């Protein structure tokens, strides 16, 4: 019976150590699993794929360092897809600390497609205002974004000369680690009819499925699994796919701990009762 007591009271540091090993081994040995594609991710892909060449896609970078491992692969994959289709990219964000990640993503992907700053893409940066800003952008982007991320007035940027509000945006890609995704759906989607796809952390993704079901968003990329699926669809394997074996092994380990912990708990309780 002692073994069950030990299982029920296992030192959390042992769990951390085992978790470290099951995540580290697949990464070091570069193990890869086949990725199954889900409908929400396929629909997100189709939303960008089916836009006519030269469409304007707005990216909202609404995350920071604490969720970048999940969402940055989504940003890179969707940016690659948009640039490969020769769409124009307008990037902004509702999280001040997220903008460096947007800039890193643009600097990494844009040169691979010979995209030129100001002509093919622009980074507007972050402005406070949140809901009020989302409503205001439907009237005039310049009311909130007088300049871009580098301080250049928008009217001096060729790409922005014909872009004033949501009427000039064909699709919004919201990359979300918080509530901003729901706000985009409420204030840009419902009010102005803007087409939206959402890429969300695993914590946020379950709350987004009902918007998918009600057709309020065109597609959903959920967590690292969603990023891996998107990378598979654009045939450019990145950190999303690289992390999925580690993810699967870690899930199996945690399932084992949940089962073992419950068995230990119930056996010890029964023994105490008897």
């Amino acid at each position: 019976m002692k073994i069950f007591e030990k299982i029920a009271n296992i030192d959390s540091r042992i769990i951390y150590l085992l978790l470290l090993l099951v995540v580290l081994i697949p990464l070091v040995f570069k193990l890869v699993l086949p990725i199954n594609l889900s409908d929400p991710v396929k629909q997100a892909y189709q939303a960008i794929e089916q836009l006519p060449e030269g469409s304007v896609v707005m990216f909202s970078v609404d995350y920071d360092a604490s969720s970048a491992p999940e969402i940055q692969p989504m940003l890179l994959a969707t940016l690659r897809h948009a640039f490969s289709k020769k769409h124009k990219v307008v990037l902004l964000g509702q999280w001040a600390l997220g903008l460096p990640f947007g800039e890193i993503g643009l600097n990494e992907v844009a040169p691979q497609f010979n995209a030129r700053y100001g002509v093919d893409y622009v980074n507007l940066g972050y402005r406070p205002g949140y809901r009020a800003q989302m409503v205001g952008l439907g009237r005039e982007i310049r009311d909130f974004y007088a300049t871009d991320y580098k301080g250049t007035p928008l009217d001096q940027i060729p790409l922005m000369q014909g872009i004033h509000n949501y009427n000039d945006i064909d699709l919004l890609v919201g990359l979300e680690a918080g509530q901003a995704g729901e706000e985009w759906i409420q204030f840009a989607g419902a009010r102005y009819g803007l087409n939206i796809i959402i890429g969300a952390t695993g914590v946020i993704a379950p709350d987004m499925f009902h918007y998918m079901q009600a057709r309020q968003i065109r597609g959903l990329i959920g967590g690292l699994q969603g990023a891996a699926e998107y990378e598979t669809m654009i045939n450019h394997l990145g950190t999303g796919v690289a992390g999925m074996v580690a993810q699967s092994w870690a899930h199996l380990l945690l399932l084992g701990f949940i089962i073992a912990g419950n068995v230990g708990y119930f056996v010890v309780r029964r023994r105490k009762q008897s």
Partner: protein
Amino acid sequence: MMQIIGTWIAAGLTLAIFSFLYKDNPFYKFAEHLYVGVSAAYAILYVLYFDVKPLLVDKFISEQGGERWILLVPAAFGLMMLARWIPKVSWLSRWSIALTVGIAAGLGITGQIQGILLPQIRGTLVPLTTVNNVLMVVGVISTLIYFYFSAAHKGALRYGARLGMVFIMMAFGASFGYTVMARISLLIGRLHFLVYEWLRLVK
């Protein structure tokens, strides 16, 4: 060279944060405080340089006529928010907070009705021709019964509420599963950085 230094700093801070898994220690505290401080400084400078300066200061200098003076209104409300630091006039900050809360509430009410309630009701009115649709409608109705507190949960209501609880538990389970995936993803992200960019064990 700068990139190498940056990678080593990032790796050191990652290990300092991970050290908390063993127990609380000064390295963890240092990394935590550094992150909070840098984040706050970045956000303040960003807002000052890209928001307050171009949209308030520069605009006030360049604008002509009545619009110029309207800018003094948000400037005054912003300054009143800072009055919290001065106990004698700290009450002034309540006006700014009241304005913020009022705008947020107004936007929130319209957003919730227009953006969530009505589209979600529309999304629930589906033909009961597939198993998914039947499950969804039954789930919505039974969950609503669970949160209906104007009558005792007896008879048919009791069964409806219990079924609702089952659906709620399933939703919690799905959320927990996704949360586990999210947390593991963060670990994968940091270990990927340590293995591929810092130690370069794998190319």
